[in-house]
């Protein structure tokens, strides 16, 4: 199989052509440094992404609290993780760094709050 990958490690944006099959990568061209090789290899073998989203929150100034995964997770898991995140409802106060979901979908990553939201008295 062949795949073209735009390297995003630096602003140069090399177009890397990768030839691969189920046993791994056969050949690669178009990169200009080792970081490009590493990036393209990871993109073919196990692409990962940080996921950022929000969860519902009660008794806070806003109705949602922003969250992120504590580390990048496998790209195929994005939809599963999102389904988990959207079922969660938290209560204020929440502090940045608080764990909202532990080991989300068995990815090894936690969902953590990225904002501090105080408890607000509801009028």
């Amino acid at each position, binding site marked *: 199989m062949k795949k073209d990958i735009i390297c995003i490690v630096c*602003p*140069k944006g090399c177009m890397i052509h990768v030839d691969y099959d189920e046993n791994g990568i056969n050949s690669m061209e178009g990169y200009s440094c080792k970081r490009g090789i590493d990036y393209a290899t990871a993109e073919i073998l196990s692409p990962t*992404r940080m996921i950022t989203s929000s969860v519902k929150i009660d008794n806070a100034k*806003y*109705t*949602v609290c*922003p969250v992120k995964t504590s580390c990048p997770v496998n790209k195929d898991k994005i939809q599963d993780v999102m389904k988990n995140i959207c079922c969660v409802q938290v209560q204020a106060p929440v502090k*940045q760094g608080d764990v909202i979901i532990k080991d989300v979908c068995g990815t090894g990553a936690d969902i953590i709050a*990225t904002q501090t939201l105080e408890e607000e008295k509801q009028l």
Partner: protein
Amino acid sequence: MPIHACWGGTRVVKEFNLVIIGGGPAGMAAALEAYALGIKDIAILERDDSLGGILKQCIHNGFGLHVFKEELTGPEYALRFSEKIKDTDITVLLNTMVINAEKNKTLYAVNPDFGFMTIKAKAVILAMGCRERSRGALRIPGANVAGIFTAGTAQRFVNMEGILPGTKAVILGSGDIGLIMARRMTLEGIKVLGVYEIMDYPGGLTRNIVQCLDDFNIPLHLSTTIVKIHGIGRVTGVTTAKVDKNMIPIKGTEEYVECDTLLLSVGLIPENELTEQMGVGMYQVTGGAYVDQDLETDTEGIFACGNVLHVHDLVDYVTMEGQKAARSAKAYIDESMEQKKTKPEIKVVPGNGLRYVLPQHIYLKDNDEKIRVFFRSKARYKDVLVRALINNEVIAKKKVIRLIPSEMESVEIKASDLYIKTDNGINLKDLVIEVEQ
């Protein structure tokens, strides 16, 4: 007419050494740096109910790689500053709108706690940020209907208020906020039908094209724009069309796309109404103030930084500019800043291939100061040399691998070089920054 004349009751008058207008990344960085330098009586005037500015709604990551050497989300980046400000005696006035300002650094503001206030400052740092270009600025013909949002408005709805703007969306413009919102809306279950860009290259960072569009198979249509908006009450669709090299829509290429939401990500405008009220000189191309190498405007003691001065690509650069403005304000308040009016100054002008430069003028000094001149290109270049010329002599050169309009670049110039090349400040010629042909 003095504005306070029409207000009855007690008039609150406050005096500060340094007043910073705007509590976003530029304002917070300026305040903390000023505090660290020992300026007493600093105030931040912020119109929202908390510090952080637009970072609070930018919940995606990718902030802070330069300043903190790690990848943070917007709210996390903002907290690094707002938490520190809590531990200082910097006066933070929230829900505070500055409604008028004078050249003598008297500001008029309102908030629910004090009502109308007159605020006097020795030095002012402008850090009001920017706002988005709207449909009105684009003049897209068609129905005047609900469902048309700037990308940033939709971002605030989704990320802070938990409201989804629609179910089927089209995005006009491939600026970074539009790309980020394409991914964000997709994750929240909104069908994003495509991103349409009038230019023949994307406006946003490559990283965002890959991670926000390619990852989710969202098509990017280059050299394509929206020529009509349809609907009664609510958007029901848009007509797109290819454009020629003069960006004129090509007849016969029109396509109808059914959607209920249209997001606009078509550029940002520095928010300079107050700057203009103060009578500060403006630079047409950036839409921000005309500044020298100390980020001082043409009005003594008024400094500008961040997106109100020129629109940046990265918040890290906004932070650094805020810190720099604070250092200049400190020198001004201490009266250690050299009397500029008596100094010779030269203009900095964009030459071949460049759209703008910043600063736009430099006061000549015979010292070892290094002056960084920022610039943006008009077109895309690969492997070019950018040079600084004065009197047809090259005083600085920089090799740039990739020069594109959406990525700001800079070149460093030695103050002493400028001084020597102008015959000790006598033979004043413009400093030209250009792409070598």
